[in-house]
């Protein structure tokens, strides 16, 4: 700038004056660059991250870190490409728990039927599962780590005695997340309080009024339009509701009834499903 200045601005005062101008113009140029880059997940300032998530149709978990959110934002097209299939739905549910100390939970999606028709040609069930702590995406990968797929014969998963291929159940195995079985009983300390007073059937730091609506919203957003999820199940004992669980630890045909004795005896909390 000094080189461009006329001779009457080349003296001690003039140089300082032009230096002042140059600093301001340099800063302005920097801000143009920052403003242009601020919508990139890797560059965005912290208060811009939620705007990017909105743009990309993504929800952020209650304890999800900024770094995890930015990574999720970079994967937005890879995630949306799978909206409506079991992988996309399970990843969306798992992402609610990103950031919890114990790592991502194990989750299952149990389809009431076998679309391939090999292991269970007459119905049965298909189990899509992510193990506890299993990564969703490997570093640099564009495709997610796929869930394991298991098929079981007719009657193995017997919710209500019928087999309807458009139904599926989401199970979150809570032994690895900040959720736990209730520790208090109905009526204590006052007549209309249950458990710790925050949410029906669940305790723990994530057990608050936002849990059920958040999980339901994710399920509604990421499931296939024709999929009906009768319940989202939080299971407190991971020996239950597994492809290889004994019959006594699986639905016995009566679980569509909330008053079913075996359902009430199960170590599970049942959130309303979505359609």
């Amino acid at each position, binding site marked *: 700038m000094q080189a461009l200045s006329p001779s009457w601005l080349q003296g001690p*005062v003039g140089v*300082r*004056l032009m*230096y*002042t*101008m140059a*600093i*301001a*113009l340099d*800063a*302005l140029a*920097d*801000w*143009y660059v*920052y*403003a*242009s*880059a*601020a*919508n990139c997940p890797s*560059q*965005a*300032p*912290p*208060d*811009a991250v939620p*705007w*990017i998530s*909105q*743009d*990309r*149709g993504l929800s952020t978990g209650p304890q999800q870190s900024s770094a995890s959110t930015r990574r999720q934002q970079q994967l*937005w*097209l890879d995630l*949306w*490409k*799978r*909206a*409506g*299939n079991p992988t*996309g739905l399970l990843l969306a549910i798992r992402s609610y728990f990103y950031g919890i100390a114990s790592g991502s939970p194990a989750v299952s999606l149990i389809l009431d039927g076998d679309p391939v028709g090999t292991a269970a040609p007459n119905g049965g069930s298909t189990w899509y599962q992510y193990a506890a702590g299993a990564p969703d995406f490997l570093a640099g990968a564009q495709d997610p780590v796929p869930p394991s797929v298991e098929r079981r014969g007719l009657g193995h998963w017997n919710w209500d005695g019928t087999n*309807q*291929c*458009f*139904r599926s159940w989401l199970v979150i195995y809570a032994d690895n997340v900040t959720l736990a079985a209730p520790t208090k009983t109905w009526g204590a300390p006052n007549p209309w309080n249950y458990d710790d007073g925050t949410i029906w059937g669940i305790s723990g730091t994530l057990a608050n009024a936002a849990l059920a609506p958040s999980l339901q919203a994710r399920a*509604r*957003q*990421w*499931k*296939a*339009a*024709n*999929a*009906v999820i*009768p319940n989202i199940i939080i299971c407190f004992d991971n020996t239950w509701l597994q492809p290889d669980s004994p019959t006594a630890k699986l639905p016995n045909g009566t679980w569509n009834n909330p008053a079913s004795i075996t359902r009430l005896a199960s170590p599970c909390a049942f959130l309303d499903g979505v*359609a």
Partner: protein
Amino acid sequence: MSMPNLADMVETNTTTDVVNLLLGVANNIGLSLSSWNPLGVGRAIVQSVSTIISLYTNTVADLAQGGYASYAAQMRGADGSDVTQWLDLRGQDQYNVLRRQATYASCASTGFSVTTGTTAGGTFQAGQFHVANPTTGATYTNTAAVNFLANQSTPCPIQADVPGTASSSGAGQITQLVTPIAGATCTNSAALVGTNIETNAGYFARCVTKLGAISTAGPAAAYDFAVQTLTQVDPAGVLPSPPYLLSGGAITRSFTRANTQTGVVTTVCGNSTGAVLGAVASILTVTFVSGTTWQIATTTPHGLTLGAQFLVTGCVGSSGLNYGGTAATVWTVAAVIDQNNVQVNVGAVGVGAYVSGGTVYGGDLGLCNFVVQANVVGQCILSTVQSIQAIAISPMATVYYKKASGLLPGAVQTKVSNSIISYFAGLPVGGVSDSTPDDSVTPLSGIIGAIMSADPSITSVVFSATQALYVVPPSPATPYFTQGDVSMIVASQPIGVPVLGGTSTISAVPK
């Protein structure tokens, strides 16, 4: 310097801010500011440069806000109106979704006519003949040449001079001749519907819905995007260009859900005025009538009205009618014989003798269904499209406004009506939840808010002591009065949307 916060980037600096900043820097590097002449060269340079920098901080703020579609959707001008340029850029370049533009209220010649007396009106070329709605003041112009002979009722196609809902008119409301013809009267038998430009909020929501369409597995958002984007230029590679416009206006709201007993996917959709007309029906037979006219008989009611458009697919024998066949077009109903028979003028298209099959996707609803079936529905999935159900609400109210405003009561009534219509049009299908979980209502508080915000001169609204709202649900339900929120549940489903039932129950009183 590290990346500043977004909040700092979107904050603009005034000239004074920048002057103070520069003087602070100058002071720090040893310039003796106290010796500067207030009108001297140094201060003049600082002042000039500060003015320029201040202007450029506005650009930085715009650039920062416009970098996000969600933020751009909230940008407002000094008058509080949407700033659209940045979201338009984001919508087109980031999502490949175009903003729905405002449309003109219009009708074909069958919807409007002029009846002359003993004096002939003469010939008017397109654009030369003008009429008006005396209640709203909206004006309209003929879109084709017309010759008004004496003692005749002459049909005339017209279009509003200004786009948007403000130019919409119900049947029988366009009764004023702006272009004088002695002894003549005019009226419109059809309603003319114009739509406003899509708001930033609606446009952004539709952009995000597009993400669901990326997947081939068909999440609900894919269905909603398909029906809500039907008015765009060949939005899904199905409909012909030039852009096909739904006769009732764009689908502005929808939701998609699965039947819990069958898994059948239903997309419930509506436009800004309420229900979407049309149906899907199987073809019973196709017969030649005369000239270029053919008649299509359907096994169930076709839901078509005169001038409505429809598609035909899967017709064996009369394959010339099929979309993508010889005609590759959308047909227009030339005559409605009865609820199961319509006639169509096929022009030079060879239709062929009917053998079997065929489906009519009739009217706006049928076309929505066609696009969903063609572009979204996966294998082994059953899907249908259903209209929302209009629930007419008439507020029984007296609106008081400041006499000093100079407004006539009729003008205030019009403003109140338009405000309520706008509020209703923005509500989601099934209304909103009030304090009761799972409730779906149009809240009385929202209607009060719409009335009060209709004009700054309005000071209060007083409802009838016992009958605040008169509600007409879809038949066969019985109309009723209510003092509270209006349920949007129809046939056990949250598919109701409110429409204004009439303005005669709202009176305006200057005070």
